[in-house]
């Protein structure tokens, strides 16, 4: 029975997990501190009590967690595991890239690894360089994986369920700065969505602004700021980084003729580059040079005064929208490109 409940982003994740554990007896939920303590962010609260041994705590052993999920998935379980911070994937990336992503392909479908790995990422005031990275580009380069980045309370629920229901290995990247930002109406118990597809969050005619994850909120703010300058931005939330819904992006760019991509990750080698490249390859004619807004080449500093200077925000995005709208036809030097030192 579809219904609407007032939930925080964290509670929406919790509700999705509860539904998965409830409706699919083959699901398991494990990771560091997820069971008895209910998660370091409180996201998995109450699930152990409700679902018993299918929800359990693990040692601080990310290779065992992900590898254990892969092995269990090969035998009919549907593990949902947590890697507490995206940064921590780096101690165990082998199990994602060299293991999970290969299982189905090499066996031609005889064995599969339908695992869901929940994580969260991004910068927050005071967080250090080892707890601030946005790593979606690393996963997006790996054939065989799917990558979701829910930006809204509703998507925190929907994308996670899509991931669990999907028969591929999926990484769901949440954002801890969204977990406890207040309650909103979230539709629950509706149909399970496919594990792909972007959404236009704000229709607009002048510039296409593609973004994802927590940056969506800065992007929507930026669109309002730009609107004050007479620029009507269309804000697209990619939602899925792999597969990337280029059709929606291209259709929008065809209408607007202008493109800005904003993400929290480092610009160089980030997913924004993939988008600009795909648009360039498509041959769509742009009215000004496309722009990327992302972090410049630094490690993330802990001091808020420093981090603020390098993490994109509504103002830097709005600035890009304005530059994009002001830019002449492709061929005019885009000022924006010179902003960020390139290494």
């Amino acid at each position, binding site marked *: 029975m579809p219904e609407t409940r007032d939930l925080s982003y964290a509670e929406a994740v919790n509700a999705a997990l509860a539904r998965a554990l409830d409706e699919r007896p083959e699901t398991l939920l494990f990771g560091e501190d997820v069971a008895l303590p209910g998660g370091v962010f409180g996201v998995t609260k109450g699930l152990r009590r409700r679902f018993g041994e299918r929800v359990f705590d693990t*040692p601080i052993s990310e290779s*065992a967690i992900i*590898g254990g999920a892969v092995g269990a998935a090969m*035998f009919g379980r549907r593990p949902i595991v947590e890697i507490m911070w995206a940064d921590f994937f780096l101690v165990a990336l082998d199990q994602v890239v060299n293991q999970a992503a290969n299982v189905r392909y090499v066996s031609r479908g005889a064995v599969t690894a339908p695992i869901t790995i929940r994580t969260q990422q991004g910068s927050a005031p005071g967080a250090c360089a080892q707890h601030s990275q946005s790593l979606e580009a690393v996963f997006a380069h790996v054939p*065989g994986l799917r990558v979701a980045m829910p930006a809204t309370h509703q998507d925190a629920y929907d994308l996670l369920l899509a991931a669990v229901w999907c028969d591929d290995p999926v990484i769901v990247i949440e954002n801890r700065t969204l977990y406890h930002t207040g309650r909103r109406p979230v539709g629950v118990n509706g149909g399970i969505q496919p594990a792909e597809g972007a959404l236009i969050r704000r229709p607009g005619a002048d510039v296409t602004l593609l973004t994802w994850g927590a940056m969506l909120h800065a992007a929507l703010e930026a669109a309002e700021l730009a609107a004050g300058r007479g620029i009507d931005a269309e804000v697209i939330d990619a939602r899925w980084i792999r597969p990337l819904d280029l059709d929606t992006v291209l259709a929008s760019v065809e209408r607007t003729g202008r493109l800005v991509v904003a993400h929290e990750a480092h610009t160089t080698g980030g997913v924004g580059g993939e988008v600009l490249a795909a648009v360039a390859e498509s041959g769509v004619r742009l009215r000004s040079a496309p722009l990327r807004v992302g972090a410049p080449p630094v490690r993330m500093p802990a001091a808020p005064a420093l981090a603020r200077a390098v993490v994109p925000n509504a103002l830097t995005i709005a600035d890009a929208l304005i530059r994009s709208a002001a830019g002449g036809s492709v061929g005019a030097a885009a000022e924006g490109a010179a902003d960020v030192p390139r290494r």
Partner: protein
Amino acid sequence: MGTPMPETAATQLDFLESMLRIRFFEEEVGRLRAEGSIVGSVHLCNGQEAVHAGACAALDPSRDAVFPTYRGHGWTLACGVPPYALFAELLGRQTGVNGGRGGSAYLTAPEYGMYGENSIVGAGAPIAAGAALAATFDGSGRVALAAFGDGAMNQGAVHEAMNFAAVRDLPVIFLVENNHYSELTPIASMVRGDRLFARASAYGMPGGRVDGNDPAAVRDAVAQAVERARGGHGPALIEAMTQRIVGHYIGDAQHYRPPGELEAALADEPIARLLATLRETIPHAELDALSERVRAEIADASARAQADPPADPSTVLEHLYA
């Protein structure tokens, strides 16, 4: 482990047949690699066959799961995969167990309980623990066996898998095939104290060493661990002492082996050893006939596989996603 029962002749002949199948298979692979029909890096298991034949004799093929390494032809055959399908895989044929996608070092044959070689050292250990984890929920009674080399004991993932399995009482067996070398480097120079099985105590699980050139001894050690694991008492670590009597990969000149070592290994290798025992009681002609039969089976399988068409590139993009 108590005094082992004397083996019946039938059992011993089964071991012999299983080991010969592996040995002849590997010899044929060596030939095919030398002539260029098989390409790429190939890791033969000659000399280690008793581990595979012995361990698989203690497993239940209908439900147990084996996770070997790139040195996995012996395990694959001992699990029951037909030599023909394995040759075809190594030859890159459409008829290979994975249609050529796996190759020598990363093939999988789940229908036979062979849940995949792994070409990342140690990476199979957590996955096997995961298979065992599934068993604690699905009522299958499955036991998972992760086989890896001595060198893999120094890989972080193996450590994590052992602790994880121990603390959750998972039905998994960690079987170290200690062939004394990790690629070209002696394990003795890479650990302080070479009793690898003794690391089991760090995880609070039983550990023991077994003669890896004696298939019955391996079978018994694994059987004991299987019984424990199936009974819900958790994992165990078994160190099977053996020698590879070939290079790490085909083409490895083994300059790093001290003089005499290989000769000693050849004198003690499992097939020669078992044959010597069996010759005391079984007519030589019978043994020769067995050997010839297996040899012919391998030759036939190889010939058939070679005649098959190469993997079909038109299918290459399939099965990446569901």
